[in-house]
């Protein structure tokens, strides 16, 4: 009799399951088209804010960190006009640099990350907490050059990369001041209120980096940190010929990943978040994705590290003719006559003073 009851129960369960699966009105299962639509990228342009906050020669690795990320981001398509690069000290022309004008991120010195076309927007003592917060919130002083402003709008995906020395809840700027995690959170909240970003990717490579993103409350922010609270981020290796540590571990492995990314790559941010496991990084990489509504494994990495520039062919014309072609011929005889001028050579050594 028990067996019979068990059979009946099993049948009831099976019928119920079949009924659930066959129910077209089941609202707990979202239609696939809707799920896909929410996972699609909605940005129209890309910006990057790359900050190195520490100075002095022995912090060479922080400059190498930020310049390497700058190179990757530029290679993947973000133009210089949309990259804000803040470097607190000059390593390339530092008197202690045995390779003047060059900054390397590897002891084999294959790539000069300083290059010929680096464009540093905030250099030296201009890298301060006040300037950084002014940049994020858009409240720059009157007369700030356009290339020094973050002109992002509601369709911009912004990448923020910070490196330097940090502690529990702060990042040290220039060895004299700190930015607290509360100020960072306030700045990003103000960006969200004024619709200055579509999605934000926040990367930090400092000691106890995870404390910097703890106070965030604005939506659409994905944050990754090289170490958790209480852990130190370690540097990778020393170059004996230059005499300082060249690069930090997290950025070294992040770069290894980014070097393999091409502009049309299908790698995802989810894979990028898993770069540098504990056995190579020694510190644990911290990730904050509760504020980010998309699945990181479906977001292409070029959403933040590359740039889209929408182009479309447009061959129509407005059929208006206002003047004949002859009227536009540059008048050759109207150019002003160039007066002949005499060249006077001064003697190289003013010997007349010594007569």
């Amino acid at each position, binding site marked *: 009799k028990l067996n019979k009851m068990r059979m009946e129960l099993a049948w009831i369960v099976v019928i119920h399951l079949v009924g659930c699966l066959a129910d077209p009105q089941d609202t707990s299962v979202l239609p696939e088209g809707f799920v896909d639509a929410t996972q699609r990228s909605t940005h129209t342009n890309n910006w990057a804010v790359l900050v190195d906050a520490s100075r002095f020669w022995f912090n060479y690795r922080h400059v190498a960190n930020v310049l390497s990320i700058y190179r990757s981001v530029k290679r993947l398509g973000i133009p210089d006009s949309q990259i804000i690069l803040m470097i607190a000290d000059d390593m390339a022309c530092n008197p202690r640099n045995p390779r003047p004008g060059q900054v390397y991120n590897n002891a084999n010195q294959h790539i000069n990350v300083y290059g010929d076309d680096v464009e540093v927007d905030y250099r030296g003592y201009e890298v301060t907490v006040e300037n950084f917060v002014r940049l994020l919130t858009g*409240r720059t002083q009157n007369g700030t050059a356009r290339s020094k402003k973050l002109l992002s709008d509601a369709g911009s995906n912004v990448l923020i990369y910070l490196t330097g020395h940090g502690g529990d809840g702060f990042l040290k700027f220039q060895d004299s001041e700190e930015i607290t995690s509360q100020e960072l959170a306030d700045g990003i909240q103000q960006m969200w209120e004024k619709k200055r970003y579509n999605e934000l990717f926040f990367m930090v490579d400092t000691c106890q980096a995870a404390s910097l993103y703890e106070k965030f409350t604005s939506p659409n922010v994905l944050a990754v940190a090289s170490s958790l609270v209480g852990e130190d981020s370690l540097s990778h290796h020393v170059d004996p010929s230059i005499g300082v540590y060249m690069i930090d571990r997290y950025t070294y492995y992040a770069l290894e990943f980014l070097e393999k990314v091409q502009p049309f790559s299908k790698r995802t941010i989810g894979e990028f978040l898993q770069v540098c496991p504990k056995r190579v990084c020694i510190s644990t990489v911290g990730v904050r994705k509760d504020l980010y509504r998309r699945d990181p494994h479906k977001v292409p990495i070029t959403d933040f590290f590359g740039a889209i*520039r*929408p*182009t479309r062919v447009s061959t129509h014309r407005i059929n*208006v003719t*206002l003047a004949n*072609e002859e009227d536009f*011929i540059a008048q050759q005889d109207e150019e002003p006559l160039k007066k002949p001028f005499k060249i006077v050579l001064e003697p190289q050594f003013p010997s007349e003073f010594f007569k």
Partner: protein
Amino acid sequence: METTSSSPFKPRRKDKDEDKFRIGATIAFIVVIIGIGVPMWWRTTTVYRVNLPSSDILSLCETSIKTAVQVAIYTKQPSRGQLLISELQAAFSDNEIWSVDFKQLSATTKTQEAHTPAVLEKLLLEEHPQSMGDFMFIEWANLQEDLLLTTERSALMRSDTTSNKLVQLLHAKILQTYRINQILSTDERMGAKSEAPQPAYDVIVSVLNPKPRLTHAQWNIAMAVKTYIEPWLAQVSGVSNFTVRSQWKYRVSIEADLKQVRDQSRLGRHYALQESALPHLLTSIAQNLSASTTDKPAINLVVYIPPCHTAPLHIYDSKEQRLTRNGVDAFISPPWGAFIIANPPERVCLAASNDKQPLPYQVSTTDNMQVMLDQLQKLLDISSELQIDGVKAVEIEQLEPRRWEYESFLRRSAIRHISTASSTLQSLIKLLDEISYIVIDDDVGAAITNSYADILAAKAALLGHRLADASALAKRAFVASERGFFDASLLAQLYFPDEQKYAIYIPLFLPIMVPVLSSFNMLRSVLQARRKAKQA
């Protein structure tokens, strides 16, 4: 100030006089420190904030932005006109954004005799003048398509055009409802992802000649720009001011893979530029166009003269189809700018391929300027590119945009400015509530209050059928709100949040406050003693 403990050298005297002085001194201290000092400290350390109409600003989103439009319909048969109007009114009855007023224009003997649509329109306008933003449907018998949009504020319709077509045209092209919905939507995924029209733009026309010694291209670009671009921009300066510059750039070449393609022309070959490589091409030249020397947002119009060894250059898509139309190879990239490929004429490159001296030639102004004008219209978002079945628009023949297109653009910009200014002011008020150490000085307060007043006036102007006023007021509101939100002084007390106020002042004032507070005890005991004495 010690009144309770006595020194061992002075005999303790319960002298009422001395008590009186002691009590008087204590009361004086209490009055000065707690009565005057603490309120004065509180007032001098409050964050300076001008009075703002916060609750009014926060309630801005409750009133929607509604626009009044008048649409007139002229038909030969009044019954048809009445039927159309009743159907149109039904279609627009419950609309939250539009308050459309339909007017019927009846046929008179003069209008029946009109020979051309232009004459008919003129006659109708004499009787019933239109104001900015209005529209008119005119019935015209010999028409090939269902609806033909003119360059003024009207469209010609056939005798059998249905009201559905009219509604479709109104929503899609005249009122551009889908774009207004995008602007007004509160969902950030659906909302407008581009910038609002800025108050000033810099238009930079650049001619690139990468090999000036081999390509002797001559062109008076300054005069071409002055003849074609500047007058056209003067016509569309209702929302933004434009300053135009032109420049020649030598030795700036494009970075793109060009494939050689054999063909039947006299040169035997041309070069193919892939459509997918166009974004990278723009990135490679953008740095060299000196667009960053200006403070205003820039619109770059580039004309590229390919050198003969890679000429003629045509754009191909991914399916190996050539995308040249009517001899034009050009593309746009909003909001950055546009690019035209001005291939040198065949005879010039033939001479170059035969190793002769480079032949100087004139770049064709009309060709390039006509394409440039169309590109500019698309970049400024004035042209409506939506295609509807059976609807055509008359080609532009004057150096001015179509009147209905431009006024739709003004209306859309006004709504955009009002919506952006409202959300900016609301964000600012919310931020002031959350972060209590932001200073609002007089200038910023005035900008915010003026912006709020202008928003209300602009909304009223839109509802009151005054589009020109609404456009100007909305622009003023937008500029003031941006100025107020992004003022540099809002960061003044960056390092002085509330918690630090207490942390700094408590170590200064606590040593003084402790004896004052403890003397309260002494006063209380004295008063109790007095009361006991009175009772006794």
